[in-house]
């Protein structure tokens, strides 16, 4: 009987590296105790991380599936589990289970298209996986635009990777913005939704949005003003989760479970859900 794997029983993972991204975001590198990537995943999928005695929580997998050596999670400090994660040292073991959820349709709907990625704050975490996937298979996609904004320069996650790698790629254009002027910043200043409208993208592409709900709402409206149809725009939803497999009931919105039917939704599909996310 118990040869069968129980989905709620996790595996041990080791945090081998902790990178400080912003004052409240750190990126954690996780491998198995024998140094391998914990499991395969697709861009946009999530994993449950836990610290026994503290709790378990769902995080989007930040690293690309094309990375076969380890998994990364960019995590903002904002609750019990994340506070604990932020206070730990490399070498610490945690538990990990997954992958959960659907994924961005990178090999179907996205294939062959120009891509527009739009993120706000920690919203870059789930997008980094798909951005790096598209960069890895560069010839499968057209032009890539990335619009990323944060409160301040210090709050931009993955700043180094963006400047040193993404910006230097052929056919990839990065547009950064911060909410308010600050001395060491000579880039764009202003909120993401307005910046997207200012940049005025042509509508022959697929847009992927991720960030705080308010940013998603206004950016989607801005994209529609530019002529985008909701069927061209993808985003991810976030709700409280306990099981990750559509059984505990927490992330139920309408007839969907965000943990298994999401977290990736096309914006016209979101319209069909009751407004409870």
């Amino acid at each position, binding site marked *: *009987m*118990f040869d*069968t*794997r*129980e*989905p*709620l*029983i*996790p*595996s*041990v993972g080791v945090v081998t590296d902790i990178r400080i991204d912003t004052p409240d975001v750190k990126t954690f590198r996780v491998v198995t105790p024998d140094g391998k990537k914990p499991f395969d995943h697709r861009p946009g999928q999530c994993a449950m991380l*836990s610290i*026994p*005695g*503290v*709790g*378990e929580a769902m995080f989007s997998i930040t690293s690309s599936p094309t990375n076969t050596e380890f998994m990364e999670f960019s995590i903002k400090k*904002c*609750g019990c589990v*994340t506070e604990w994660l932020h206070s730990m*040292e490399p*070498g*610490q*073991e*945690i*538990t990990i289970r997954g992958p959960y959820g659907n994924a961005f349709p990178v090999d179907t709907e996205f294939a062959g298209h120009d891509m527009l990625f739009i993120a706000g704050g920690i919203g870059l975490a789930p997008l980094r996986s798909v951005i790096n996937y598209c960069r890895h298979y560069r010839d499968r996609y057209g032009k890539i635009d990335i619009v990323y904004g944060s409160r301040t320069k210090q709050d931009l996650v993955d700043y180094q990777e963006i400047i040193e790698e993404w910006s230097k790629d052929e056919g990839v254009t990065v547009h950064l913005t911060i909410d308010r002027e600050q001395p060491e910043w000579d880039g764009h200043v202003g909120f993401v939704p307005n910046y997207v409208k200012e940049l005025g993208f042509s509508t022959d592409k697929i847009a992927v949005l991720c960030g705080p*709900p308010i940013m998603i709402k206004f950016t989607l409206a801005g994209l529609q003003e530019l002529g985008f149809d909701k069927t061209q725009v993808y985003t991810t939803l*976030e*709700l*409280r989760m*306990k*099981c990750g*497999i*559509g*059984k*505990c*009931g*927490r992330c*139920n*919105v*309408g*007839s969907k479970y965000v943990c298994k039917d999401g977290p990736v939704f096309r914006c016209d599909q979101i319209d069909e859900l*009751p407004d*409870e*996310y």
Partner: protein
Amino acid sequence: MRKVSLDKLDQLFAGIASRETLYLPVDTAAGAKYEKWAEGKQLSDALNTVRSPKDFFFPQTENLMDFKVEGKKIEIIDTREESEDFVIFGVRGCDVKSFEVLDRVFLAEPADTYYKNRRDHATIVSMACLKPAATCFCGTFGIDAASPEGDVVCHKTADALYLDAKTEKGEKLLAALDSLTEEADAAPVEEQKSLIHERLAKLPLAGLKADAFGSGKTDEYFDAPEWKELSESCLGCGTCTFVCPTCQCYDIKDFNTGHGVKRFRCWDSCMYSEFTKMSAGQPRLTQLERFRQRFMHKLVYYPTNNDGLFSCVGCGRCVSKCPIQMNIVKVMKKLGGRANV
């Protein structure tokens, strides 16, 4: 069809208990409840148990696994144990149906092995409801209290208990009890079924229809103005979800014993404000939204995902236990419109 005379019920129970653990409803000061049978324990004649039998498969609290934490090291200890074989005797038709509702959640891939383990080892002996109550509305969901489902189906008459095996598991159980039972004519059972049908037709909720609800009706009801009035008095106590045989939402929490960490699964309730609360926000801010979630799930969302099957079996527990007398019947009447007035 087999039968055993009522004065030999104890022998029948002893016969079952000699093979596997037997649970049956017994009367207690706090109402009928399932207990492990032992010499002297009498089968309750109460229509139903206060708590539903979902505990047998989905206990209120259960240890999922343990952890040993030493410095930076973690050891995960699989605490699962193979369940013993057991018989649940005297399950009413509504509650038998609730197992199917739960199965579709817990046995869907990837299956919950804790639940599946107990389900695989259980034999369900159901009991027809000779005296259905004013709070009963199983018929609304197509359940026949006179002919419940189950591995073995029982009808209790004035002098005998009739047993009919419906599945392989049921046949196995009855075969083992062969010497304690005798071959029976089905006529008394058919007679009782007719009597039950007559009684069911006279119940106050006999006319309650679920036709207005079901798959794909989210838009029809989600923004209905009636939710406000319906939910206004709701205390958010969660009693309805706890006595409900089909409510299956759960929480997972860790407990540090000082010698290690135990991870538990506990029943939870969508009626509680903490249920959906995240550090990033709270999608259901008011009791109206939580209340609506419970009933929309039972009457619309669940059927949408499960071939039209409703996540209510009409057992009436919430009808009798809600401290403010609000329940799914009132919700259906109010929202379901003309058909249910």
